[in-house]
């Protein structure tokens, strides 16, 4: 175990160094930690106040659901990377005479350290807030933290064990078993949503239920339930024994590098390798749509090039996932209300964030390819106009999908709402393409360029959508003529925004700086 401190120091430095090597030293990192303290305490307090209104059974079910979510996250992580190793660790540390267990202990300590450094203060504030919200003495945070720490440690041990088992026993269907356990963890969250199917999850001998009962005892200051203590102890000891057995095995050859280049950073080399894998994986399917380079004008070529990229490089998956998420939330929200919800914050997010994400992906994956038109003697005007057109087209398809779903559920379409959902992606695309001619995004959460792309496109798109829908709404819809006028105004407004965007992008891209 003599190498553990060295390995841990290297991992911690590698992870946190990029975030404090900037102009302001460690201040952004400290600011980020402090920034989430009030919100952590606030959320904890609100949650505590809510939990105070629940009966003991409901409280245990809610805590159990939260712990199940943590476990499910652990299973998801173990299905992916599992053990955190950056490319340089693979090249230099894992080729050194380091024992598997030494590396695992260092990784375990690193995961706990990074969680504590990145979000520990906010999490502690949330726990204090929770106790305060429930009116419980704050000193009970100590046993509560202890229970949570043991549970967290157990999850990290599970993650490491599953990862090693995946590598060492490739034919043992470890992945399938993990997926099954993930599904069961998800099912154990259902009681918190009021869907228990007659099963009392709190009494089942599962770890999250046992730890939830123990957390309950910590909050209320009662002596811990013996049976839960035994169940939790058995699980912890069993997982610990499994970890002890597996951690002695050599597994370095199966480790994949993590995507993160550090706290809030992205390792571009790994990201590009991941993109290559994704393109290769779906190649047989995505290549069915081909880019014909010998037909169409220049704007058409550049628009199709951008669409083909989004279709093939995995960006479309982000669009579908985000859209699905916001549609799902929207449906959940609208089912509890009779009011049309087309112009709500959720719809706005669904119509804008996917475009902003596409813009970020462009910065990561495509910007470097601009050397091709630049050295080819082409101005980038057509390129950026094509990029903007492709974003508008994707945005309109997204909105059409959302409008169709809303129309099917609510059986009516409000013109102002329609204009809002059509103009939001058009406006967002215009702002995104305009920004991309000027902003250079560094791959990290602290990049001002990234934040600018995300928030300027969102607020710009929102502004356009609100102003357009207000204009359309002001016309009124009492007669067929007025409705027709609404349609004309909405379409004209969208076309005007598109053309203003084309002019702005054309002008700015003439002075685009590639390097």
């Amino acid at each position: 175990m003599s190498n553990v401190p060295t390995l841990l120091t290297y991992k911690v430095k590698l992870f946190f160094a990029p975030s404090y090597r900037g102009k302001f030293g460690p201040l952004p990192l400290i600011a980020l930690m402090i920034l989430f303290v009030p919100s952590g305490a606030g959320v904890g307090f609100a949650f505590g106040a809510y939990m105070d209104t629940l009966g003991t059974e409901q409280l245990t079910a809610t805590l159990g659901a939260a712990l199940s979510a943590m476990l499910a996250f652990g299973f998801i992580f173990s299905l992916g990377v599992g053990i955190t190793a950056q490319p340089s660790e693979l090249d230099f540390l894992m080729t050194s005479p380091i024992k598997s267990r030494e590396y695992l202990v260092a990784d375990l300590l690193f995961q706990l350290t990074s969680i504590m450094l990145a979000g520990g203060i906010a999490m502690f504030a949330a726990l204090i807030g929770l106790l305060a919200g429930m009116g419980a003495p704050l000193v009970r945070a100590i046993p509560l933290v202890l229970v949570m720490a043991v549970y967290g440690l157990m999850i990290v041990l599970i993650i490491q064990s599953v990862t090693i088992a995946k590598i060492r026993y490739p034919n043992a269907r470890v992945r399938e078993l993990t997926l099954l356990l993930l599904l069961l963890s998800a099912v154990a969250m259902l009681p918190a949503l009021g869907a228990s199917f007659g099963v009392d999850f709190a009494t089942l001998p599962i770890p999250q239920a046992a730890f939830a009962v123990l957390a309950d005892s910590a909050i209320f200051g009662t002596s811990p339930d013996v049976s839960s203590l035994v169940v939790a102890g058995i699980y912890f000891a069993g997982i610990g024994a499994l970890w002890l057995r597996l951690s002695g095995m050599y597994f370095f050859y199966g480790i994949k590098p993590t995507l993160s280049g550090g706290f809030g950073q992205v390792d571009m080399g790994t990201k590009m390798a991941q993109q290559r894998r994704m393109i290769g994986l779906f190649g047989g399917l995505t290549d069915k749509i081909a880019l014909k380079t010998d037909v169409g004008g220049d704007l058409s070529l550049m628009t199709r090039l951008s669409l083909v990229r989004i279709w093939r490089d995995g960006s479309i998956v982000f669009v579908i996932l985000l859209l699905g998420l916001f549609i799902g939330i929207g449906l959940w929200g609208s089912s509890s209300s009779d009011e049309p919800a087309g112009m709500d914050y959720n719809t706005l997010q669904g119509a804008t964030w996917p475009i902003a994400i596409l813009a970020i992906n462009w910065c990561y994956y495509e910007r470097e390819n601009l050397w091709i038109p630049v050295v080819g003697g082409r101005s980038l005007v057509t390129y950026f106009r094509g990029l903007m057109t492709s974003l508008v087209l994707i945005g309109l398809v997204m909105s059409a999908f959302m409008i169709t779903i809303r129309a099917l559920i609510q059986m009516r379409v409000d013109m102002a709402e329609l204009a809002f959902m059509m103009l939001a992606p058009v406006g967002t695309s215009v702002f995104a393409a305009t920004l991309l001619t000027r902003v250079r995004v560094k791959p990290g959460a602290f990049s001002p360029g990234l934040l600018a792309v995300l928030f300027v496109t969102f607020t710009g798109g929102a502004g356009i959508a609100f102003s357009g829908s207000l204009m359309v709404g002001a016309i009124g819809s009492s007669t067929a003529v007025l409705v027709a006028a609404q349609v004309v105004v909405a379409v004209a407004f969208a076309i005007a925004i598109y053309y203003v965007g084309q002019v702005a992008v054309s002008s700015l891209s003439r002075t685009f700086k590639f390097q």
Partner: protein
Amino acid sequence: MPEPTVRIENLWKAYDGTQALQGLSLAAFEGEIVGLIGPNGAGKTTAIKIIVGLLQWDRGEVHVFGHNILADSISYKEHIGYMPEAPALPEYLTTSEFLGYVGRVRNVPKEQLPGRVSEMLRDFELTGKAKETVATLSKGMRAKLAFAAATIHKPQLLILDEPLLGIDPAGQRLLKDRLVGMAKQGCSILVSTHQLDTAERLCTKVAVIHRGKNVATGDLESLRGQAHAGEHQTLEEIFLKLTEEAGQPEPDMPRRKGLFSRK
């Protein structure tokens, strides 16, 4: 004396206060293969990026086909081909789509494009990969594809930055034969390389660049003379001698006198 295809005069370029080029001068004529050799950080890639229009310089002049590229920074590019060191390629395109895209950007007429793409794929032994995405290609195949893209429009000036890196011997031979063939047809070729034996055999002229300036230029005989080297000394020995001799303190960049000048 014919007009050089590329003429660089007293070129200066600094990155954040660090001088990358310190008065570099260079010329390449029609049909010449000019090798740019020099230690890491000598300024070879900086000079190349300036010629192809990817970098702005601080002082000096760059003429391509007799035209000052500062005066017209677009039209001269129609006749140049460029292959960067470790090129970023659109991973999501198939090899034929990529060549078609570059062909369109390089103004290859649409009706000639499919034929030209097929020809390039055949010449560079990539026909079997025509429908596969760039993401699936090996390092050597990517280099061959980048080379094909640099030459798809039959350029009059070809600029290559470490083109043979990561390519197997057969692939290297293919590219070198292609370069010699293009030079015979009158194409000027500027190639940056660390492979001195390749430069010795392939290039008609070699420019030794050190600390951002050209310390010697000429064919092997001429370089021997400039380095006072024996007739059996290789380019590697000459290169080491020239760069060691040139290891004197760096000169200051000439500056315009301004209000706050000390002199």
